[in-house]
């Protein structure tokens, strides 16, 4: 059941007896206008996760969650296309598995109201509590710096920095340190107020529940009507004629070769389902060309995979290899793409990859969280389709359509993290 609470605020109830928990997501979504918002929103998400008026520090939050039988609560940040979402996620056990009447759902609603609407502020200056603010800011800066230690993530971020033309898109989702350093407690509080008033709000609750449970939750989440609607959520950019190439040296055991392509197909539009099948055949599955040829046949890598981001028309390949094999692996990747352009796929592999996609799709409904995220995505994109329809669309994809998708793929960037540092 889904309803419009007020303009720009939706609420959905997913009634299911499949899980032993009740899960609540409240998401704040906006279209990013400036890259500094990335750092701002991450910092605000972190602040709201660890403090509120009633629970001014994480010990008190942690104690309250323990009291609610190991309830979990956290905030997340996520960018999809031009959208950015701060999510409040809460999970607790359904009362019927606990002794006595715990009434956890009411406690959950009160808790969420507290952490969302009553942040820890210093009045009357109207800014976030200075000590908490300074600590969270410093911690976030430290966190951003340690991302460099994960070489797969690092290489992927460097590839994106080279591929994307828009500053918002080429900045990592958590923002950059310079922007973060410029934020003070007052600015953050003002942004929080704006977010509370203007962001699109999607509330979802899932579990063994009844309609009145959603009504009760909503009385604790008094969002006002939004003035603005979300604009265009998809990010697109034009093809550039020169391929961006970058090589960086570090002293490592393994080198990383990442490749970016432009693929002008958007979420659930024409060719989208063919693009899903294409990606599974290219590098998205253990049956894929990259897995079978780069890993299994040539023994070049432990991982060699592709991903397709249909909100940004962005296709990318990630591999971990020996530095000396770079040119060879680059040629292998190109060869796999060409073999898809020429339709060199057995009927059996083609059908098996589709079956695998269908299994993945059905399996989503065995995860309470994933099913809830899909619900929000359906609401925001306004393209909701039934499971059977999704299956039919995948089944209907032909090899010719996949070849056509492969032809639309355009090489745009190559990033190489060379592990053999010359000393």
């Amino acid at each position: 059941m889904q309803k419009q609470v007020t303009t720009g605020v939706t609420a959905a109830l997913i009634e299911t007896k499949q899980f032993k928990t009740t899960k609540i997501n409240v998401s704040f979504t906006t279209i990013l206008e400036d890259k500094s918002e990335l750092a701002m929103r991450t910092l605000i998400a972190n602040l709201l996760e660890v403090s509120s008026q009633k629970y001014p520090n994480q010990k008190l939050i942690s104690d309250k969650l323990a009291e609610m039988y190991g309830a979990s609560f956290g905030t997340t940040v996520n960018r999809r296309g031009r959208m950015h979402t701060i999510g409040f996620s809460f999970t607790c056990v359904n009362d019927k598995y606990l002794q006595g009447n715990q009434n956890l759902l009411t406690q959950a609603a009160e808790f969420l109201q507290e952490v969302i609407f009553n942040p820890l502020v210093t009045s009357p200056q109207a800014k976030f509590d200075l000590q908490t603010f300074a600590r969270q800011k410093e911690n976030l800066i430290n966190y951003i710096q340690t991302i460099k230690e994960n070489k797969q993530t690092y290489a992927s971020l460097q590839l994106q920095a080279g591929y994307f033309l828009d500053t918002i898109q080429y900045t990592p989702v958590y923002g950059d340190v310079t922007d973060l350093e410029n934020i003070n407690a007052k600015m953050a509080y003002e942004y929080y107020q704006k977010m509370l008033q203007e962001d699109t709000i999607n509330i979802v609750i899932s579990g063994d529940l009844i309609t009145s449970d959603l009504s009760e939750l909503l009385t604790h989440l008094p969002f006002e009507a939004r003035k603005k609607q979300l604009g265009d959520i998809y990010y697109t950019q034009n093809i550039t004629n020169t391929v961006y190439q970058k090589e960086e040296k570090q002293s490592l055991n393994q080198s990383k070769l990442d490749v970016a392509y432009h693929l002008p197909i958007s979420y659930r539009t024409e060719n989208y389902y063919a693009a899903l099948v294409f990606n599974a055949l290219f590098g998205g599955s253990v049956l894929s060309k990259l897995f079978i040829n780069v890993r299994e046949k040539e023994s070049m890598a432990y991982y060699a995979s592709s991903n397709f981001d249909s909100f940004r028309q962005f296709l990318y390949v990630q591999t971990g290899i020996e530095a000396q094999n770079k040119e060879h692996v680059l040629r292998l990747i190109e060869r796999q793409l060409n073999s898809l352009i020429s339709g060199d796929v057995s009927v059996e592999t083609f059908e098996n990859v589709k079956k695998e996609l269908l299994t993945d799709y059905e399996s989503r409904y065995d995860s309470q969280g994933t099913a809830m995220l899909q619900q929000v995505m359906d609401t925001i994109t306004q393209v909701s389709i039934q499971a059977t329809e999704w299956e039919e669309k995948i089944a209907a994809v032909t090899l010719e359509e996949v070849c056509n998708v492969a032809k639309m793929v355009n090489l745009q960037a190559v990033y190489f993290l060379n592990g053999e540092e010359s000393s």
Partner: protein
Amino acid sequence: MRVKEYEQFGETLYTLVLPNGLKVNMLPRPNFHKTYGILTTNYGSLDSTFAPLDKDELCKVPDGIAHFLEHKLFEKKNYDAFDLFGKYGADANAYTSFTRTSYLFSATKNVKECLDILLDFVQTPYFSDETVAKEKGIIGQEIKMYDDDPNWRLFFGMLGNLYPNTPLSVDIAGSVESIAQITPELLYTCYNAFYQPSNMNLFIVGRLDVEELTSWIEKNQSLKDFPSAQKIQRVQFENTLESVDIIPYRMIELDVQRPKTMVGIRGLDVVPEGRDGLKYKLTIDLLLYLLYSESSKNYLELYKRGILDDSFGYEFQIERGFHFAVISGDTKNPQELSNEIIGIAENAQNILVNQQSEFQLAQRELIGRYITSMNSLESIANQYAGDLFEDATIFDVVPIIEKITLDDIKKVAQDFIRSEAVSVYQVLPKEDVK
């Protein structure tokens, strides 16, 4: 067939042992779309010295061979098991730990076919010079990938302190040098010794019909010939250890942004057998929660002082033959953080005084976490530890937690936390010489 009802959670577990010794657990979850099956052998990276089947003399095999074997079982003379699962749209995978190797699939259709593929590919070994040589390149890259991960280095650095010169201090995948020595003959030797059905178990959970499933499994197994079950002779890991081995401190300089420090506590006490072992584990979990979680007495003060941040965490590992705890974090003051962690451990008895209400919160926390983990088919099956805790499943855990008292925690703290069992390992940024 044994039927066990867990009324509190509305779950029923069906268990049977086949004539060949294979133990099968089935847990129906009719509301789910998937069926998840996992076949596990009680054999991991620690089991590197054992007597081959039909022999009495012990042999020592190269480090990383259990994991190598896991990779190689998928590939046969004319096909790959991934392709067979692919026919039915099923996902398949495998993993190796210190004491276990597991093969798994998940499917939404054609469960019978997938089950047959799982049993058949694991029970029909094929190793050749050519396929073994090829795998060395792939696993070599897997090892190198982990070698570049500073948190992995921190963890194995600590195991090297707690259990020096034992297989426990070596990466489960071995090293590029050790896997170079692996041959098809050695793989068959390991396989024949440890992949006897009597050393294995199959756990299936999700959408399933118990009777139908039982008949499929029985049929599959009855069509195969197995040598009669033999008792496995392996050097028990705990018998190779001496407490004096522990190295109190080491560090390594790597290309990291911030120092990392880890404190390890090796269990020198004897873990009780069977279900009491599970109670022991849960008591330590509660102890560590009271000492080091965000709800603990000291956490907030250290957080506010900037000695620790959200990277701080702890874990307790217990498997066949060993148990240890590690507590770690990224910090600008590695020395101070490890001193604080050790101080809390040594002061545990004082910290635990008058903590009755905190203890009750910790109990609630743990109960809730276990009930939440019942949402996941993978958690239910993967957390089953076979013989280790006398076939306990996660449905057995909650009543045990409810019976634990604060006194139990004080007692376990005394037994487990010994100053001679404590060690520190640090990963520090390279000195800038630019």
